[in-house]
């Protein structure tokens, strides 16, 4: 009986975009990276010759009506997290192999006692309704076969491959579905090998002689042997702070000030428990529903908010934003283990700051917000008076 189930939603980022912009359905659409290369192309775009890794300019030349959208990784991750959360209702052990591809360990689950079909129906029913019509579900003895089964299945008709039928099932599946480098696939095609069964019939030594260690792995997969364990998904529980701008920010100076405030705010969160920060993610919501994010792993745990703000500043300064920033958010993804910190010699100065902090805390408790603000210079050189100064919440 199969013990691994696979949920496969093809072109997941593209589907999220089409969900957000239903008018684009049935039209050629491409998602492009910051380097302006095509990452995903809709079926209509592919028909017009648009391919992955193609420069956006070339894609537009090939397809005049192509809609080019910026890759919004944050939005796709959020949507995928929703799917994973829904799947947790079925199985506690889930691997998120990629956005749009998840494996579930279904061994010993109650639904499985009613049979594989009931198990797969339970998985389909657990998915958020908007994904039910798009999800391909397969079940088999291991991850690879389950993935191939899912690719073969139609949405709404899950596919189960019996353990005894694995080699028969794989024999007529396209070899291009086997995970391998583009060069290996090119050579396999040149050798006239297009189906998994063709490769599985060859001696292992012959395949290894041609493709080395990777060849041995491909040969095993084509025979339905996949010993790769399921790697359970590790949930990120970031400590998040965000700033919304009253007017979309178009200058870096505003963003740098916002980064300072975010670093200071994160530092005060009790979840930090005095631990140095090791990894952060800076996210920006740009005008026009676009998004941007950058993950920053710090070599050493950062022990002061000033230092964290400095690191964030480096990121913002080197970043060409594609639009005005409406909201900036900072997620702390990982903390370092605690390190000893030298206490301050200047006790009196610290006392004043602590008293001030206490006063602000009390005001916040009374009014629900801090009525004390700090005046900061944003663009002191600007000819537009309202852009020169700004008020930010005062946090000593």
């Amino acid at each position, binding site marked *: 009986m199969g013990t691994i189930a696979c949920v496969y939603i093809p072109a997941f980022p593209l589907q999220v975009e089409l969900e957000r912009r239903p008018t684009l359905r049935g039209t050629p659409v491409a998602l492009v990276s910051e380097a302006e290369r095509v990452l995903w192309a809709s079926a209509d775009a592919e028909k017009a010759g648009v391919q992955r890794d193609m420069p956006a300019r070339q894609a537009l030349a090939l397809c005049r009506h192509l809609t080019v959208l910026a890759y919004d990784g944050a939005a796709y991750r959020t949507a995928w997290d929703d799917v994973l959360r829904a799947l947790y209702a079925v199985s506690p052990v889930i691997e998120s192999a990629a956005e749009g591809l998840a494996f579930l360990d279904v061994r010993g689950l109650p639904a499985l006692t009613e049979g594989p079909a009931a198990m797969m129906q339970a998985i389909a029913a657990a998915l958020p309704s908007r994904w039910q019509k798009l999800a391909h579900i397969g079940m088999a003895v291991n991850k690879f076969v389950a993935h191939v089964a899912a690719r073969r299945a139609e949405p709404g008709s899950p596919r189960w491959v019996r353990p005894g039928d694995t080699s028969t099932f794989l024999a007529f599946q396209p070899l291009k579905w086997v995970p391998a480098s583009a060069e290996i696939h090119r050579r396999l095609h040149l050798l006239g090998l297009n189906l998994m069964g063709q490769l599985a019939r060859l001696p292992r030594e012959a395949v290894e002689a041609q493709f080395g260690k990777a060849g041995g792995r491909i040969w095993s997969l084509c025979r339905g042997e996949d010993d790769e364990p399921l790697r359970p998904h590790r949930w990120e529980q970031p400590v*998040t702070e965000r*700033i*919304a*701008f*009253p*007017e979309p920010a178009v200058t870096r100076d505003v963003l740098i000030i916002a980064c300072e405030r975010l670093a200071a705010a994160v530092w005060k969160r009790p979840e930090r428990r005095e631990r140095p920060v090791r990894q952060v993610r800076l996210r920006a919501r740009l005008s026009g529903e676009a998004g941007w994010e950058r993950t920053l792993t710090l070599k050493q745990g950062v022990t002061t908010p000033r230092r964290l703000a400095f690191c964030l500043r480096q990121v913002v300064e080197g970043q060409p934003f594609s639009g005005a920033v409406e909201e900036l958010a900072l997620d702390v993804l990982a903390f370092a283990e605690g390190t000893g910190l030298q206490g301050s010699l200047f006790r009196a100065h610290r006392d004043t700051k602590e008293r001030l902090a206490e006063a602000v805390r009390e005001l916040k408790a009374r009014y629900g917000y801090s009525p004390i603000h700090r005046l900061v210079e944003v663009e002191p050189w600007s000819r*537009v008076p*309202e852009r020169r100064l*700004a008020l930010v919440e005062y946090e000593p």
Partner: protein
Amino acid sequence: MVPRSREAVGPRRIRAVNEPRRLDMKTDGAGVPVAFRPETPLPGPGRPGRIRAGWNGPAHWYRVEQVLDMWRIDEGWWRPRPIHRTYYRLFLRHGAVVDVYFDEVDGRWYEQRYD
């Protein structure tokens, strides 16, 4: 599934300072300010000052004694909301000095300190 409990409660905001405030303006034939009525009363005589509430009773029309200075700023013509303003520094009959501008984008008059 327990919802994430570590999200921030609400967004922190950065507030702009010295934002322009609407006023009604009467001009002469050449478009130069002659008299205006702010939403709130003006400060007394002295340096250019911000119009503050509760200073001199309810707002009324102020006569312009002299236009001390005039300048223009044009910025961000490439943005969706460009800035095309003509500023006037006005000396009023009762002795106060205020800065006003005509916004050519929306065709309205505003008061705003310009140091």
